């Protein structure tokens, strides 16, 4: 029916072009066209946050964004965090604090944490919990996730690194 659209984005720091149907969500484009399966399809309707990405630096549910509308924008997914030197400090903190069990929610959690720490380097526990409210976890009970975000904040501040 409808023609494919040509999309150019800055994805995890690299310029990426792809073709998608107007009806494909950004999550489908990432997973099915670009092979980036880090962002998860949990609920596919905005409830769980497993599909969280940064769109122009702001936290968004990629299951509710059209791929076509990522054109000209910056996208960061979980795949964009680690580099050759190793895991990103937020990822490392999740490992150290056991901030995950099955791991399904983890890419979204880490991206949500990054969105927070990029803007607020020293959030309180209350603020962390409030901010992460859109990211559901069926396993951990959230306590270790909160601790992981706190540890990541301390780490990032200690090194004065941006992250």
């Amino acid at each position, binding site marked *: *029916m*409808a*023609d494919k*659209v040509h999309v150019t984005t800055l994805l995890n720091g690299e310029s990426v072009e792809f073709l998608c*149907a*107007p*009806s*494909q*969500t950004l999550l*489908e484009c990432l997973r099915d066209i670009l092979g980036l399966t880090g962002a998860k399809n949990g609920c*596919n*309707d*905005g409830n769980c*946050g497993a599909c*969280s990405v940064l769109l122009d630096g*702001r*936290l*968004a*549910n990629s299951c*509710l*964004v*059209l791929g*076509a*509308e990522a054109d000209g924008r910056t996208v960061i997914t979980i795949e964009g965090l680690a580099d050759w030197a190793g895991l990103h400090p937020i990822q490392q903190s999740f490992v150290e604090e056991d901030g995950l069990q099955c791991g399904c929610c983890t890419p979204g959690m880490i991206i*949500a944490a990054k*969105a927070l720490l990029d803007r607020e380097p020293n959030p309180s526990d209350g603020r962390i919990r*409030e*901010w992460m*409210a*859109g*990211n559901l976890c069926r396993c951990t009970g959230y306590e270790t996730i909160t601790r992981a975000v706190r540890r990541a904040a301390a780490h990032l501040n200690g090194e004065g690194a941006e992250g």
Partner: protein
Amino acid sequence: MAIKPFAHGNAVTVAEAVEALSASCRPLAGGTDLLAMMKADLTAPESLVNLKTIPELHEIGVVPDAETTKGLRIGAMVTLSQLAAHPAVQGRQELGRGSLTRSSMAVLHQAILRTASPQLRHMATLGGNLLQEPRCWYYRNELIPCWRKGGRLCYAYRGENKRHVILGGGPCYAVHPSDPAVALLAMDASLRIVGPAGERTMSLAEFYHPPDRETRTVTHLAIDELITEIRVPAPQAGTRGVYVKVAERAAWDFALAAVAIQAVMEGDTIRSCRVALGGVATIPWRASQVEEVLMGQASSPAPLSTAVIDRAVEAVVEDIRPLEHNGYKADLLQGVLREALDQLR
């Protein structure tokens, strides 16, 4: 479920978008409700016209309202997080003379911060929020042809109705899901609407109506019209407001009951006030009988007298007609009103 194929176009002006609108071409704002509706095949437009590309709809500003006061004009595409971060909404920028207190816009600020999750608030627009579809589980199930979707029966009426309306229901009993709309009703906000015939302004109070038997909608928006702007009048000196919401969960969830109050104080007396209810009716609901009880009562700094609070709490449930499983909402609503009145002082 994947979305049925559709065409997608970016509009650059309001006129261009209005021109495109029809029953099969719908406006796309943040997409947080529309795309979910399309995934569930509850609606299947042939094309979407993207409003994100219309610069004027993203504007938000303090502009001359009447001669001496200023109002806030919020472009329909302003996102909920942008709105919550605006200095006027946070009470840091003067709107009307003497209105510069944290509490004059607090009702809106609090309602937004209780809406959905941070990531959804980054995407969701105020215009889209006012027009979101009900969250009734019968309505949202694509296999159930309920009345609101053109069928013959509201299945909630005799079915699982613990989340449904207790005020003014029928023929549909699904609650209106918006929090910001309840706050805006208490603030006496109005909408600028643009259609093929030009523009018109309508108060939010008139904009919503109980489910209409012909169109099966709850608003006066025609299929080829857009909301372009939400206008909030400048609060008068001494205005204070509060929004209290209860939901099943503390993290994001839709309201089971919510109360918005915007009151104008003169000294320690409530000179005028507007009270609106959420989570209990098919539309944001004005509780005028509660307003009558509160008008002229002394409230600050001492709390309202117990007798007045008791009368208000009686009045708020005067007209209720609970269904089989939602009688608890009456108690909940009364509790929420008590809490709101307590916070108002």
